[in-house]
């Protein structure tokens, strides 16, 4: 009886609410995956070490959950006390039992037929806080669900989907707020980042990523171009609870490839912005690509690391940018410390000592097209990098490809693509890729693992000395985190366009990833 009571208490405790304090210290419960990038510092590193360099060859699929959708599966699942919350296209959420892979509930919602999304009706995951699960939708709503039933607690319209606004990123839950980024950078929207009260859905603040005329930064937009300046916020950012600062990447200025209509630096496009988490006020910004004409959004994951940079202990943010440079910034001040290319680039001749690029002559799009590296898909993209404190290496899945970029007409029509050009692949050059391990302070390459084609899958590093990654040809693979030596692989049968996670079920470590149109869960053969 005593044992049964003990088990019951354990069961109840095991399903306690996901408080802010739990997420803040997510590294203390590596059996769960409580926020998009694992922790607020976005290392996408698991402290679990049951699966390790010695035994990873015995990793086997345990169950597969097939989605009810054909669109790309970009979701990072969250795992809380035996339940996995995963999103499916267009904006649906399913709670799965992590033992069996069987669904406990599903939230399915019709979206309008005329939603405008540039790149598929995708969703990258949920946030969880207390007893609610939060999801953004392709028709630009944010919805709070009861974590036990999937029933709607509140449903707020963030913006008008008919003008090209959408939400594809996982929200970020912190304190009593839900931070929500938006997409629409190919539709001439005016970008912003929102925070909502988790209990009521009332908007707490909005930071416009394109300042209105007269505000600081508005001088970086010619004429009325700010009105369609884009700078969307479509990838989940990071948070430093001690500084109470949110770090979030912003997207390309609009129109993408024709900069003639928007002379100037176009703030705050292609920036890392640092915002006060309570007020949404700008603390600092760093612009990676002023006046971008290549569609190289800075919507990648800011990785927060405390390290020794040139013999000084500093709070840093590490950032592998789509523009093919790896950056080290001071996250208290935004000061540029260092950058180094991690993939081929020809758009900048160099960066000056403040990190400002000097554009390469002849790399600007023209009506007849010019060849430039990287491809607009970038040296990397939205999928996650990983930082392992165990190896002290930064892992990025690098894309090696170029494009022929064109400048075209840029006429704004509400709800229509506002691209001002386009691109094509370089004939006979399909591109390649590599998993690259960088020394985090210098960006120096420590090792690389070549990939057949440019990847769309992110990285996970673990205390077991492993890094997991995926490729377009469907393999999930594990490498030795110290050397890059391949140790294990599995053919999932579909492209991997997502980032892996790790958690445990009944004390046994698992690795999970979305691939094709399904979630795969792996564990050691027993």
């Amino acid at each position, binding site marked *: 009886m005593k044992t049964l009571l003990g088990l019951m208490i354990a069961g109840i405790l095991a399903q306690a609410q996901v408080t802010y304090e739990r997420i803040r210290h997510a590294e203390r419960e590596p059996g769960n995956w409580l926020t998009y990038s694992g922790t607020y510092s976005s290392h996408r590193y698991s402290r679990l070490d049951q699966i390790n360099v010695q035994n990873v060859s015995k990793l086997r699929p345990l169950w597969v959950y097939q989605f009810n959708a054909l669109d790309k599966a970009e979701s990072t699942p969250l795992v809380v006390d035996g339940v996995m919350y995963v999103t499916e296209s267009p904006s649906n959420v399913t709670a799965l039992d992590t033992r069996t892979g069987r669904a406990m509930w599903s939230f399915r919602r019709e979206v309008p037929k005329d939603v405008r999304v540039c790149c598929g009706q995708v969703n990258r995951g949920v946030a969880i806080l207390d007893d609610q699960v939060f999801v953004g939708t392709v028709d630009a709503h944010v919805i709070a669900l009861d974590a036990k039933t999937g029933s709607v607690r509140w449903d707020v319209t963030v913006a008008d989907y008919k003008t090209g606004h959408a939400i594809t990123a996982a929200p970020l839950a912190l304190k009593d707020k839900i931070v929500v980024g938006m997409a629409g950078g190919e539709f001439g929207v005016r970008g912003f980042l929102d925070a909502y009260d988790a209990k009521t859905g009332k908007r707490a603040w909005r930071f416009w990523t394109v300042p209105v005329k007269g505000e600081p930064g508005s001088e970086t937009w010619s004429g009325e171009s700010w009105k369609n300046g884009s700078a969307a916020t479509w990838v989940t950012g990071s948070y430093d609870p001690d500084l109470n600062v949110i770090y979030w990447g912003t997207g390309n200025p609009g129109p*993408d490839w024709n900069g003639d209509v928007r002379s100037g630096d176009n703030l705050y496009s292609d920036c890392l912005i640092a915002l006060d988490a309570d007020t949404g006020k700008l603390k600092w910004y760093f612009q990676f690509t002023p006046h971008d004409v290549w569609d190289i959004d800075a919507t990648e994951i800011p990785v927060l690391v405390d390290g020794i940079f040139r013999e000084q202990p500093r709070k840093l943010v590490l950032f592998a940018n789509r523009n093919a440079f790896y950056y080290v910034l001071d996250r208290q001040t935004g000061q540029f410390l260092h950058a180094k290319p991690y993939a081929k680039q020809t758009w900048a001749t160099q960066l000056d000592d403040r990190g400002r690029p000097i554009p390469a002559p002849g790399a600007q799009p023209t009506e007849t097209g010019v060849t430039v590296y990287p491809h607009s898909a970038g040296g990397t993209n939205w999928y996650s990098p990983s930082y392992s404190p165990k190896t002290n290496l930064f892992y990025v899945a690098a894309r090696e490809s170029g494009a022929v970029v*064109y400048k075209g007409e840029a006429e704004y029509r509400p709800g229509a693509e506002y691209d001002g050009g386009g691109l094509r692949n370089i004939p*006979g050059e399909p591109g390649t890729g590599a998993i690259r391990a960088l020394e985090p302070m210098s960006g120096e390459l420590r090792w690389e693992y070549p990939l057949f084609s440019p990847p769309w899958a992110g990285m996970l590093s673990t205390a077991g000395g492993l890094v997991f990654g995926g490729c377009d040809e469907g393999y999930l693979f594990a490498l030795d985190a110290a050397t890059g030596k391949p140790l294990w692989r599995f053919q999932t049968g579909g492209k991997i366009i997502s980032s892996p996670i790790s958690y445990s079920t009944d004390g046994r470590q698992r690795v999970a990833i979305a691939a094709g149109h399904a979630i795969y869960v792996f564990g050691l053969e027993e």
Partner: protein
Amino acid sequence: LSLCGLLAAHMLLMWQAELPTEVPKQNPYTSAAEVQHGKRLFAANCAVCHAPDGTGGRGANLARPRLQRAPDDHALFLVIRQGVPGTEMPPGWWVLNEHEIWQVAAYVRSLGRVAQESVAGNARAGGDLFRTLGCPGCHQTGAVGGRMGPPLTDIGSRRGAAYLRAKVLEPASSLPEEFLQVQIVTRDGWRITGIRLNEDNYSIQVRDLSDQLLSFWKDELTSIERQPGRSPMPSYRERLSDRELDDLVAYLVSLQSD
């Protein structure tokens, strides 16, 4: 009816309800001016994925006479209007009206298509030559022919006479990507030449010169040589008279899609 059945029926109704009452079988707007306007709309709305010249990138290559999802004008109209569910191709109806969709369709149809030229040779004699030379051993025309080389069923719609003449004389001068020749050597010394069917980090699949479908793990191989400038097809420079070459080219030009 199961719930799934009901849902499917509902979806079908919704799909049908959105279609205009009658979509013509053939594009009613195909004048040069309409094509030109379609080109402008294409640049603004489609080029981001399909490239300004329609040769593709993130989206499919449209510069070819046969489009997999749009074999005729009616189907092409519907693809542009409704998008392709489960892909990144969005519905066009919220930015283009019906007239504009037809204009884009007219431009898409104009891509990768060359006007039929009048050429010097005798196409009938060229057809006979095509067979006596053994070309059908590797090339399909209609339902007949081999698989080693690209099918030529509608080659005259896609390629001009000058290009075809150059290819007969110098087959490796430009090769379709899906016909990449590879030479593979296995650890036990087996040497295979074939067309690459698929490849990834760990494996490669080929069809060899005797039409065998083969697959290898890369760790079983000592080398893989990709030969983008090589073709299994011999040059016919020394084997054809000028007249015969004209005839053969005339025959290839006569192979049209419609």
